[in-house]
Every structure is written in structure tokens, then in C-alpha cells.
């Protein structure tokens, strides 16, 4: 048998049937559901008189619309409330497991899947959400789907798919101290572009990726979609297995050993062929900041904002021009002179315990800069929040002037009350800096948790490593 990539193996394990043109029916093991992309799918089931194929494969949670402030009074916005109530009702009607807003286990769908052990190595995982790629960190085939596909998976447990191409992104060597998973993935996107992964399933490998914790690996896979790839994945190793062990939905008793031995095969074989291989030198990666309105518009913290006059391609030059204009930046200015109005630490990219620890280590002993109007810390789940409070991280943030909130998507996409006003500039640990993403006219700069914390304290972008070093030498 010829050598296979990790993606080949995951694909082959899930093919139910294949048509002559290569279109295949793929079996789905785990279906995560949230309130925004599911109501029309449930409505479709009702109209057609269909029932979910396997209710036990579904885990539902409201996250996009939930308030991050006191929830005892429920959701104030009636339209958001209706959407969340619709999810609750659909889960009751179709007998699906849901963590409602009041449940301590509630949180961002991509945080709670792994946290509960509902995401396991070797699974196919889908969700009506493009950041489902996050779950690929477990050696799973995980990707976002549209609402029609949500309905299709509910009704048939399968998806109609064509196999993607294989890409390997290898980050070779070790990153320097203070360079995080977020910096690695932003550097990757800067390298290959936001359409660089279109049509591919990306496997991330190399020493710098292997060195990451599961939290860091999730951050990297989360943003595979920002590189254009529906799915990103990382081979299973001891880090993966240690993380999964003992979680509520993880295999139990006799199944555990059986599962672990099956999972050990979840890596690309020696000599497996990729359609494309991209290599990055880990050592050259610096803390990153996006300057524009697409995640590929990214530079190291010590660099300057580009000048459209230096870009020979006229379509690209006008894109740079438009982005600078929207972002209110001057061509050629150093990014570390750009001051911010708000900071947001949260989202499915960076709201796990390790992210909060990373930010807290920078914040400790400092105060929010005077020009920063609001700095939000929004944990990814109720359980992350609880753990952070046990570790005293909430105190570090609140004493420095940050707000400590309830879990949800929050200002990542501003569907609830947390948003930017027109013209406001934000250092954000989320994944998208599109025009208006965090509120109409808002200006988003994507950074790591450490860099967002550092910007909040300095009032402008700054290399987080210098703050921490200063701290250590005092």
C-alpha cells in the first residue's frame, strides 16, 4: 500500500460511497451546532418531515448572540433572544444535547468541543461555522459547512464532498522566546495569502508546531480558513492524547486503550506525497500585527506599514490604498507608533486558559493606558472562566483596569452588544480584520494575547517581549 497523508487516511476512513466523477458521500462523526446557522436547517427538517439520523452525534451551544455581561435578566435584544430560544426549542424538539446559556459548560462552540472531549482524534467534525478547522488540531478532519449542509448532516449523517488536495506547511526549527502560536499562523498567512490554501486540506507540521500545546495547535488550525483552507490538521502525538484523556466525552474503560492504539496511526506516512509543500523558518518569525483589512495584510512588530507606491501590481496597489484609507494609517509609518482605543482578548482563536495566562503574564503589575477606553477579556467557556478565576487571573486583569466577562463570541463579530464605534481602533486576538467586522467603521488589528495585552498597557502596539523583559529585570 502506498504512503498516505494524514488527510488521505481520515478521508479514506469516512467514505461511504463514491460516484464516477469523484463526488463522495462522507460519514460525519461529530456535528456541532450553534444558534446562527442552524434555525433554517431545523425548519427544513420539519418541512420535509425528517428526523435527525443520529442524535448522539450532535452537541449544540449558543455562543454568537449571548451577552457577556450579567445574564440573569436574559438577553435584552429581542432578535438575538429569539435566535437563542429557537436553538433551545429545536434541541428539545429533536432530543439533542445542548449546553444552554445558563450551563457552566456553555462557551464558544470551538472551545467546548475539545474541552468536553467531544472532539476526538480520527473523527470527522463539522459545524455551520468556518472556524471548525480548529478541531483539526486533534488529528481530526474538521471543516465548516453552510446551513443547507447542516440540514444534510442532520438528516443523513453524511456530506457530499469532493476530496481536497494535500498541502503541508512545515514550520522548521524553534521559535524564539515570546513568539506564540498566533504569531506563527499570522506569519503563515502573510506568506501564502488568504487564498493560498483554497482547495487544499492543510497539514501543519515541523518542530515549531510539534512544540505547541493543544491550545496553541488549536490557534493555528483555527486560522487555516483565513489561509483559504477549509480544513487544517496536525498529527496525533502524546500531547494530543494527554489532553483528551479523562474528558467527559472521551472514550472510557476498555475503549480507551483501543482508541489510543488506533490514534497512533494518525500521522502522515514516511514518504507520503503532498500536492504542495511550504516551509517556514520558525526562528525568523517575530510577533505579528495586521495593518489592513485582510489577515494576509500582516507585518512583524518592528516593521512599517506598506506603501502602495512600492507595489507593482495595480490591483494589489489599489487594495493596499483602500485598506490604508479604511484603517486610517499613513503609508510607511512604523506599526508600533499606532495607538489603540480598545483591546479584545477572546474568540475561538485565543480564549483558552493558556491564552489568558499568556495575556495575564504581560498585564501583571501594570495599568491600562489612559487612551484605552475599554479592554475586554472574554473567556472561551464557563469552565475556562472558572479555572482562570481559580488561578487568580481575573484579579490580574480587573486590577489593571480590564473588564472580565461571561463567555461567548463577543467582540469577535459584534453580534451582541460588544462592538467598536466607527473609527475606533482595536488590538484584537480574534481571526478576522475585515471592514466592519467588529462594528461598522471599526478598525481591527489581529495580534496574539500577549501583544493585545501589551498594546492595552502601552496604549499603542509594542513588542510584548520588551514589557515582560522589563518586568524581569526590575
Amino acid at each position, binding site marked *: 500500500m502506498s504512503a498516505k497523508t494524514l488527510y488521505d487516511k481520515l478521508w479514506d476512513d469516512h467514505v461511504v460511497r463514491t460516484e464516477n466523477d469523484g463526488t463522495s458521500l462522507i460519514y460525519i462523526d461529530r456535528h456541532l451546532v450553534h444558534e446562527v446557522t442552524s434555525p433554517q436547517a431545523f425548519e427544513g427538517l420539519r418541512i420535509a418531515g425528517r428526523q435527525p439520523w443520529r442524535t448522539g452525534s450532535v452537541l449544540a451551544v449558543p455562543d454568537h448572540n449571548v451577552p457577556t455581561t450579567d445574564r440573569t435578566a436574559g438577553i435584552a435584544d429581542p432578535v438575538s433572544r429569539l435566535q437563542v430560544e429557537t436553538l433551545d426549542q429545536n434541541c428539545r424538539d429533536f432530543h439533542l444535547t445542548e449546553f444552554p446559556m445558563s450551563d457552566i459548560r456553555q462557551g464558544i462552540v470551538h472551545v467546548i468541543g475539545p474541552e468536553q472531549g467531544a472532539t476526538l482524534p480520527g473523527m470527522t467534525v463539522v459545524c455551520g461555522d468556518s472556524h471548525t478547522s480548529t478541531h483539526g488540531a486533534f488529528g481530526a478532519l474538521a471543516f465548516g459547512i453552510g446551513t443547507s449542509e447542516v440540514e444534510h448532516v442532520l*438528516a443523513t449523517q453524511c456530506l457530499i464532498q469532493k476530496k481536497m488536495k494535500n498541502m503541508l506547511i512545515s514550520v522548521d526549527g524553534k521559535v524564539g522566546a515570546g513568539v506564540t502560536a498566533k504569531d506563527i499562523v499570522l506569519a503563515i498567512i502573510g506568506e501564502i495569502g488568504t487564498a493560498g490554501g483554497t482547495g487544499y486540506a492543510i497539514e501543519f507540521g515541523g518542530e515549531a508546531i510539534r512544540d505547541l500545546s493543544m491550545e496553541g495547535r488549536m490557534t493555528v488550525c483555527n486560522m487555516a480558513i483565513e489561509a483559504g483552507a477549509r480544513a487544517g490538521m496536525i498529527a496525533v502525538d502524546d500531547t494530543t492524547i494527554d489532553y483528551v484523556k479523562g474528558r467527559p466525552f472521551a472514550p472510557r474503560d476498555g475503549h480507551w486503550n483501543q482508541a489510543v492504539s488506533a490514534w497512533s496511526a494518525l500521522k502522515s506516512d514516511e514518504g507520503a506525497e503532498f500536492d504542495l509543500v511550504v516551509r517556514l523558518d520558525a526562528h525568523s518569525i517575530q510577533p505579528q500585527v495586521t495593518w489592513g483589512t485582510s489577515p494576509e495584510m500582516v507585518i512583524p512588530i518592528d516593521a512599517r506599514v506598506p506603501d502602495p507606491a512600492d507595489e507593482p501590481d495595480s*490591483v494589489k496597489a489599489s487594495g493596499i490604498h483602500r485598506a490604508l484609507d479604511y484603517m486610517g494609517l499613513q503609508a510607511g509609518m512604523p506599526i508600533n507608533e499606532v495607538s489603540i482605543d480598545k483591546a479584545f482578548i477572546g474568540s475561538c482563536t485565543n480564549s483558552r486558559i493558556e491564552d489568558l495566562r499568556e495575556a495575564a503574564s504581560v498585564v501583571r503589575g501594570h495599568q491600562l493606558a489612559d487612551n484605552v477606553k475599554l479592554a475586554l477579556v472574554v473567556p472561551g467557556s464557563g469552565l475556562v472562566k472558572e479555572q482562570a478565576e481559580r488561578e487568580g487571573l481575573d484579579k490580574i486583569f480587573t486590577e489593571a483596569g480590564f473588564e472580565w466577562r461571561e463567555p461567548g463570541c463577543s467582540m469577535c463579530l459584534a453580534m451582541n452588544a460588544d462592538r467598536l464605534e466607527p473609527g475606533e481602533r482595536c488590538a484584537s486576538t480574534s481571526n478576522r480584520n475585515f471592514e466592519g467586522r467588529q462594528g461598522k467603521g471599526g478598525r481591527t488589528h489581529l495580534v496574539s494575547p500577549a501583544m493585545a495585552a501589551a498594546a492595552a498597557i502601552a496604549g499603542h502596539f509594542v513588542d510584548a517581549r520588551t514589557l515582560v523583559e522589563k518586568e524581569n529585570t526590575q
Partner: protein
Amino acid sequence: MMQAFTVLNGLVVPLDRSNVDTDAIIPKQYLKSVKRTGFGPNMFDDWRYLEPGEPGMDHSKRTPNPDFVVNQPRYKGAEILLARDNFGCGSSREHAVWALTDYGIRAVIAPSFADIFFNNSFKNGLLPIALDEAIVDQLFREVEAQEGYRLAIDLEAQTITTPSGGVIDFEVDEFRKYCLLNGLDDIGLTLKHADEIRAYEERRRQEAPWLFQE
């Protein structure tokens, strides 16, 4: 049942930007709807109107942005959107496709599409056509030069005919073409294979029982 797509002879509107994301096609405040319809007035909402929009407003009373191409009188009633590369990137929201179709767009032509958007389009009778960059460039020039510019798209023959009689071939997957031509609901098609799905599940339950621990 989705609308079948056979032949379309439609007015073309050019949107000359790359990386048009689904947040731009339909901003998040409109995603709170629990319906599939009614998104048309909010297609490209941030670009299309001068004042900010919220769900529940009377959008016909808002001020259209005269600089935004879709608002120009010569493109009124357009059914074909001509776009640049990586169209539909970003979130998986199918609402983006629903906004385009509700507005009246039946086909999008671009050098490349984001995967999820591309997939979602077919589920809703919207035909995404990927053409070479050079051909798309040429189409942009022609549309801008000639008012009332229309293209005739024949899905069966996989051709696009320009006003001057030029014919451009395009690619489409067999299976997707079949569903689109017939307006078929693919859940119904998949359920014809229910026995195979059950057989797969049985086999898998033996190999990997922990996946079925519920």
C-alpha cells in the same frame, strides 16, 4: 426544492474588488433572522447605503450610496455578478448566498471563489463560475464599456456567450450540474443510499466503538 438553473440571459454588474468576504456580502446584524428569505435589501449593506442599517428598518427609506456600483441605474435588475478573486471568503454563512439570490443574482463569475461559499451557492440555485483571470479582466472591460451588457449562460452546454457572439467555456462538476439543472434536493438523493450509510455505521461501530458511545 431549489430553483432549477438551465439558461440565463442576464444583465451583468461588475464588482471590482478582490477578497470580497461574506461579512461584506451580508453584515452580521442580519444573521439574527431565523428565516431563509428577506436578505436581498441588505446585500452589501455597508457599501450600499450611507447610513448604518439594523434589522427591522424600512430599507427602502435609507439613502443609497451613489458611488456603489450596484446602485447605479445602468445595473438595476442585474442577475450576473462579475467579481475578482477569492470571492465569498470568510465565514460559512449561507446568508451571503441567500442575500445574493434574494436580490436576484443567479450567477457569479470570478477568477476564484472561497470553498464554502462555492459549495453553498450550488445548494441554492446560484451558479458560481470560475474563469481565467485574463478572461475576467476582458469581461470587466467589456461590461464597463457597454451599457446594458448581458451574458447568456447555458449550464447544459457549459458556455457563456458575450454580446458580440464570443463563446467562453466553463467547468462544472457533473454531480453539481445535474442537481442544478434539475433543481434537486440532495438530501433526498443521499437518502436513497440509506442502506449503505447503515452498513458503513455497522462496520465502523466494530472498528471504532468509542465513536458511538452516547
